[in-house]
């Protein structure tokens, strides 16, 4: 029973390709300005006390590893891609209910659990498109600007983003089964992922409030650590996967019980 997975996957192709294209352009531009930026960045790093730089998450930003890990991945992946996954998932269920497509889907011999799981599974499309597309852009871009980056480390940095993006999708799908309107679900998902990202960043600034950031998913993904130090945080990735599964279970429980 994969009809929903197939249909949903096909629908995600276009937006995935558009987003991949836009982010690829953005990445290409950012990489193009890096050589000029690197000189300035070295001065910035010298001028600031090392403690503050660490708190801001800026680390070795004049090196390509620090730049890609701290800047590119943080903005492009953790913010933009995270928002996209939450936004797309937030529309998946509620939109079908509002347009009455769900009536016809559920008049077929398919369980509600299967509907949700197939829809979430269709996120493989943007997951693959973004990772393959942006990996290629960064790998090629770095070569073009005359820098070098360990492709294995880059690939691992990509891989460790997957659990984070799944958590964003989980947030979206929960909102999608709870809220009654497409617009509310999507706006809430987008806003929530953005706020969580912001809270994580801000919480680093004051040690008294750093614990607040522990509740944000972006705390558990650190591409910079992988690229600069080669540290793989398997525990954090596992935690994100558990959070994703918990969100899916919540979505299933709510969706199975509710009227549509």
């Amino acid at each position, binding site marked *: 029973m994969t009809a929903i997975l197939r249909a949903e996957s096909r629908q995600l192709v276009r937006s995935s390709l558009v987003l991949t294209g836009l982010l690829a352009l953005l990445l290409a531009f950012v990489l193009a300005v890096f050589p000029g930026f690197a000189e300035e960045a070295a001065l910035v790093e010298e001028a600031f006390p090392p403690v503050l730089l660490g708190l801001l998450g800026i680390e070795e930003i004049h090196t390509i590893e620090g730049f890609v890990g701290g800047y590119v991945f943080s903005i492009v992946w953790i913010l933009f891609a995270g928002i996209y996954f939450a936004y797309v998932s937030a529309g998946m269920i509620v939109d079908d209910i509002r347009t009455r497509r769900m*009536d016809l889907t*559920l008049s077929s*011999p398919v369980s*509600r659990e299967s509907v949700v799981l197939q829809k979430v599974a269709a996120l493989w499309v943007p997951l693959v498109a973004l990772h393959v597309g942006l990996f290629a852009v960064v790998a090629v871009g770095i070569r073009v600007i005359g820098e070098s980056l360990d492709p294995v480390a880059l690939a691992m940095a990509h891989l460790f983003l997957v659990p984070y993006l799944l958590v964003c999708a989980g947030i979206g799908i929960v909102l999608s089964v709870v809220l009654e309107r497409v617009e509310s679900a999507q706006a809430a998902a987008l806003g929530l992922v953005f706020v969580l990202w912001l809270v994580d960043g801000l919480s680093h600034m004051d040690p008294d409030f750093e614990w607040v950031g522990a509740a944000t998913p972006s705390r558990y993904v650190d591409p910079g650590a992988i690229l600069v130090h080669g540290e793989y945080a398997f525990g954090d990735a596992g935690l994100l996967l558990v959070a994703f599964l918990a969100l899916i279970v919540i979505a299933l429980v709510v969706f199975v*019980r509710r009227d549509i």
Partner: protein
Amino acid sequence: MSTIHMDGLTKRYGDVLANDSVTFDVGSGEIFGYLGPNGAGKTTTIRLLLGLIKPTSGTAAVLGADIRDRRALTERKAAVGYLPDSLGFEERLTGRQVLDYFARMRGDERRDELLELFHPPLEKPVETYSHGNKRMLGIVQAFMHDPQLAILDEPTSGLDPLKQDRLHQFLEAERDAGKTIFLSSHVLSEVQRVCDRVGIIREGKLAALEDIDALLERSGKRVWIHLTDPVDEERFVTPEMIDLEVVDSAAQFTYTGEYNALVDHLGAFDIANIEITDPQLDEIFKHYYGEDGSAATNHEEPVQTEAE
């Protein structure tokens, strides 16, 4: 065993009882008409039967599966076809892609046969479809897996008369082949035309449940009478007369009492002309509802006052 069995099926939305203890059976191999105006609760019953919404109390069984038993109901849906009142298709897909999608979920052994009767433009995206084309696509998806039970919510809405006839013929052929059809409608002639039995729902409650013929019989006779003198309403009108209209020496009404009493009563008058016929279903409908829900009481009250 009945194909559909409803037992005290109740759905409450806040203060509104959309379905109020609805109880009846739909037998195997019949076309059952579920009649009522918009907002009476027809769609609520249908969505309860499909497990899309959950009953507040009571229950129902569809093809033997209790609607509260999700797993059993999901399994039985392979033998159910559903045509909703408002059709939600993925608008960007073509008609063919939509049918392919449903075929993957339920099968489509009768798709070609149905497309000979109902032919929506399959190569065009659904968003360009007229209301009638969407309805035809809906009919094809509802029947293409050869379901044992078809639940149709206002099936002919938006279809041109020719296609309506075609659908009615198709439904009769399905019934003769042993399939069960449960259709909701507010189109009375449609129900009269194809249904074997009718349930009339009013404000969430089942108001009547009869064979079409029995319903016509029980609903009395339509009487048109022309007297030689102007009608003296004090003398002429009885409580059994509803939908009464009097114009000078002519009167028109539906008589709901004993025929003998009617003939005896009319014998006291000098009759110039008379016509007694079966009522149309819309008149029966009015009998259960009133013109718009309130009209029935307006009609009946003065009659009863005069009789007292």
